[in-house]
């Protein structure tokens, strides 16, 4: 009996992708943090997935699509890989999705290459991930994709001198390097590049240094949450705003924490790919579906990454069912209208080509809530970090 079960397991794996192609049920395994300090990501993904299914149904052709959620906690590649193996072997999922942190996404690389499982990254933003396996697809963004347009836009606005302040870890350094390179190429000058300890919430000395350098603008990259809150507070209280030093960021005015920032956030400029204030039919439909299901839900980049990721999975199922390589091929240059604007897959980098917007925080006249108002598209770009 035991041997028999083992045999079935082995058989299941050997024929993975062949037998399941005929099945009517398509399963998608979502690996994301659902507990601990990063649980917000998992919640955003799940709400967006439910919103997509509410709008587009749970069936594609004869295939019924279901999602299995697995909690990875935080940065934990061991767990991520073990969960992926379990999902593929026991639950026999046809697609994997989720992945907030780069190491977690990288850890499943060898597994998905072997099982030929298309894996849609909802968030992890290091450019090099997609080089590790041809089965990665990414519907979020990469840091160069937003930092380089930010540098170009700043120069066009007449900003000539900048100080960069980034959190001292992988994504922060990526943001700093790509911003600096692009800004200096334009002919601008980066007076100082400050790397801030990841866990600090006291930015007074750092911003005092920025103020003393008296640049035209300060470019910053911070992980969301408490650091962003105290950074913006210090930016205002230490008189950088009054000194005319412009604020230039990316995800700092992210929607989940935006209301908490209060009036001090008004007027802050960020360069990013999605704002729930985006004016379009697709975005309104997404937001309506989201708030119908979860009245307290707030859409942000993680939600839209998941929403577009599910769209990609639906398109793959529509085209090929669950034949991994064919599915990747089928969507390799797919174009669609997303809540964030027009999107297109780049067949080389397998990351979306998208609009990057310049936004300014303002209070909405009707609801009285703060929002990132898009002032214009400043670039339509793919993963600019691919060749670096």
């Amino acid at each position, binding site marked *: 009996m035991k041997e028999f079960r083992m045999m079935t397991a*082995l058989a299941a*794996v050997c024929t993975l992708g062949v037998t399941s192609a005929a099945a009517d049920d398509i399963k998608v395994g979502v690996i994301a943090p659902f507990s601990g300090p990063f649980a917000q990501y998992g919640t955003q993904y799940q709400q967006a997935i439910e919103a997509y299914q509410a709008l587009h149904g749970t069936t594609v052709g004869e295939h019924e699509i279901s999602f299995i959620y697995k909690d990875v906690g935080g940065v*934990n590649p061991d767990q991520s890989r*073990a969960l992926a193996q*379990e999902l593929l072997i026991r639950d026999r999922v046809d697609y994997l999705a989720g992945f907030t942190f780069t190491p977690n996404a990288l*850890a499943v*690389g060898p597994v998905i290459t*072997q099982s030929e499982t298309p894996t849609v990254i909802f968030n992890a933003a290091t450019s090099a991930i997609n080089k590790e396996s041809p089965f990665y697809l990414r519907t979020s963004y990469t840091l160069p994709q937003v930092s380089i347009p930010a540098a170009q836009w700043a120069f066009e606005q007449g900003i000539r001198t900048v100080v960069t302040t980034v959190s001292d870890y992988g*994504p922060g350094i990526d943001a700093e390097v790509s911003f600096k390179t692009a800004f200096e190429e334009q002919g601008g000058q980066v007076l100082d590049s400050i790397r801030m300890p990841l866990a600090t919430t006291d930015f007074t000395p750092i911003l005092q240094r920025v103020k003393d350098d008296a640049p035209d603008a300060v470019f910053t990259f911070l992980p969301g949450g408490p650091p962003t809150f105290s950074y913006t507070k210090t930016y205002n209280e230490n008189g950088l705003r009054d000194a005319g030093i412009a604020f230039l960021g990316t995800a700092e005015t992210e929607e989940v924490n935006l209301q908490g920032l209060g009036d001090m956030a008004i007027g802050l400029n960020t360069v990013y790919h999605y704002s729930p204030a985006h004016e379009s039919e697709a975005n309104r439909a997404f937001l309506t579906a989201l708030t119908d299901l979860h009245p307290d839900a707030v859409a942000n980049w993680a939600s839209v990454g998941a929403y577009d990721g599910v769209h990609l999975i639906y398109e793959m199922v529509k085209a090929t069912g669950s034949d991994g390589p064919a599915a990747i091929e089928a969507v390799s240059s797919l174009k669609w209208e997303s809540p964030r604007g027009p999107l297109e897959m780049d067949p080389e980098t397998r990351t979306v080509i998208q609009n990057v917007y310049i936004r300014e925080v303002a209070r909405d006249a009707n609801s009285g809530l703060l929002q990132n108002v898009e002032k214009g598209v400043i670039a339509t770009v793919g993963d600019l970090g691919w060749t670096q």
Partner: protein
Amino acid sequence: MKLRSYSVAGVMLFAALAAFFLFPYNLAFLTRIFIMIILVLSLDLVLGYAGIATLGQAAMYGAGAYAAGLFAIHVWADPFAGLVVGAVAGAALAAVSGVVLMRTTGLTLIMLTIAVAQIGAEIANRMREITGGADGLRGIRPSKILGIWDFDFIGVTGYWYACAVAAFVFGLLSVIGRSPFGLSLRGVHESPERMEAIGVSVFQRRLIAYVMGGGIAGIAGALSAQITQLVSLETFSFTLSAEALIMLILGGTGRLYGAALGTVVFMTVHHLAAANDPFNWLFVIGGLVLTVVFALPSGLVALPTSLKRLSKGDRHARS
């Protein structure tokens, strides 16, 4: 005594065999249990036997993981060579830090062990070109074990490999535990002053135990690098040290099978609870730890004794 220890070992090997056939779909998870058992065993040697209070065992685990990973990428992909490199790296870090750390006790010692792990993480973060920084060290592809067994997709090879290494470490530690050296460690634990008085260098004994524990933690780290094929900064994390400590306390310190039992129980409960409720499983873990700490201060290994006393009507059911 001897018969009993053989039967305990037999039961554990049988459990490993049974788990393989009963849960063929969970081999990846079971493999992680073995790796954690090795780490918790190393902590048992350091904390349970020698009484060195540490919250930084992850420092040696991380050092072993990065050393084995880098060795596999740049020098030689042989898994056993990787384990040796991991053990040497863990032992070396333990020796260097231990020279200072083993002169301290109590809170100072705990703080310093945490600091060593933090420094390790920061070095790995800074040396991005070598370690991959926050993205993790990737590209580790261990070659076939003994040139015969390839690391397969379902994790059959990984399972038996990790099982064999865990069994080896367990055997090694039970020999050490019974040797005169092991007994002197217990002496150092229970009364360092008296050991000093009978002419034992307490510092030296503690240092040797710490280095041995570091080597074993390094083996666990190397194993995790080979199985996951990726090393992240989290191998140095405080959470890992703390979780290992919780598993040890859960099972019972100072007894090797307690370390194994605690790890299996903690990780299984964690796995089941997280699978059934990915949002609120931490409550279950918290409840389990609280119950054990309050009801069974000596850990789960003391459960039979406590039950026996309870059934006899002894009011002091605690062992």
